[in-house]
């Protein structure tokens, strides 16, 4: 004779096991991370690698400086700062100095010359207040020379031989990525120099490295 004294217990256990073995619910968790993001591109959206050519700098009877600019598109999802650092001035094809002066970093003015701060997906579009401090070109433009020598630039490339903050602001982009055409601000950087009787050369150059990062 088989004992059924423990049958209810066995059946209960079987039911619990059956219940536990076949779940009809499940959970799917999707997660991700939106990191801090800062971007400097050329106006075409490509890598920033611009050349400002000042051309042949022949001295003349004028106090007007020769200048050039490069425009940079900037995006960020957080308050940012931009630093600039200039390399040393490289002079090629230099003639004899003969007691004169070579062109130097102190002879080349450097400034933020213009900014476009609006866009459909620019945060605080229309009310942005980027701060370039002493690197902002005054409304009157580049200073003119009064004596045919290097004018009094607010800042020159010599001032950024070590990395210096040249611009800062609040978050730029509302959303969108690097393809988006209205989520960036455009900042134009300029250099200027007065053509003078510096020691002749065939070329001079300096590389300015811009770095954008979180404030």
């Amino acid at each position, binding site marked *: *004779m*088989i004992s*059924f004294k423990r*049958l*209810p217990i066995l*059946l*209960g256990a*079987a*039911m619990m096991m*059956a*219940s536990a073995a*076949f*779940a*009809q*619910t*499940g*959970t*799917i*968790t*999707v*997660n*991700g*991370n*939106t*990191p*801090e*993001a800062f*971007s400097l591109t050329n106006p075409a*959206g490509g890598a920033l690698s611009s050349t400002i050519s000042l051309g042949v700098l022949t001295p003349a009877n004028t106090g007007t400086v020769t200048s050039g600019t490069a425009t940079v598109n900037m*995006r*960020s*999802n*957080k*308050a940012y700062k931009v630093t600039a650092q200039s390399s040393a001035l490289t002079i090629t094809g230099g003639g004899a100095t003969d007691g004169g002066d070579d062109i130097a970093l102190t002879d080349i003015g450097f400034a933020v010359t213009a900014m476009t701060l609006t866009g459909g*997906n620019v*945060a*605080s579009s229309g009310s942005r207040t980027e701060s370039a401090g002493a690197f902002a070109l005054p409304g009157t433009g580049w200073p003119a020379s009064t004596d045919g020598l290097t004018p009094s630039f607010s800042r020159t490339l010599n001032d950024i031989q070590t990395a210096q903050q040249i611009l800062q602001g*609040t*978050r*730029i*982009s*509302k*959303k*969108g*990525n*690097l*393809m*988006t*055409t209205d*989520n960036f601000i455009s900042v134009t950087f300029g250099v200027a120099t007065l053509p003078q009787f510096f020691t002749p050369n065939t070329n001079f150059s300096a590389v300015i490295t811009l770095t954008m990062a979180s404030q």
Partner: protein
Amino acid sequence: MVLGRSMKVVFFAAVAIMMSRGKAIAQVLTNTSNGVLSANIPFGNLTPGTSTTPASTQVQFRIRSNNSTGYKILVSAVFNVTPTALVQGGNTVSASDIGVGISSIIPGNATSSPRGDTIAAGFNYDPATVAATNGMTPYTGAALGLATLADIVANPNMTLLSGPKVANNQGINNQNNFLTVTITFGLVGQFFTPSTLSGILNVRLVDGP
């Protein structure tokens, strides 16, 4: 074998309960290893780029059901985002930025046919293949054919998928008696407020219709 009267009552009551529960477990929802469906699928680091292709991730699960009235997949969702920086007039990623679609349903060899599985309107697409032509979220919502997680958040226990009986049995040792469903999620990395995000999709398999 002799059962007393009280034992008989207990025995038949237990059998009745088991039969009742047996009907309740006519469906089995598992992952692709026949285990409990508990998937964690990361998008990872959503750095904005220049691509038109959204970041995507997907999960597969199996549906077994021998219920003659078919089955339904009910889903609910919650979405959480934790900003790690000030919003400052920008946008923070939301559930409506995450595309959700059933990108495939593959019936096993022993499933009932012809199949007539029905995907909820707007969810019958693959979010990974939707181009972000302007670098922004391309998903327009279920009403416009490109559903997002926000559609599920707004409609708890919505029927995501339904269909007729899957197979004549729901045994998980059978490798041919299930539907393999793939849900794909898509998200375009953008200059959203720095944050961490998570969306939890609760999936429930019940009798149809």
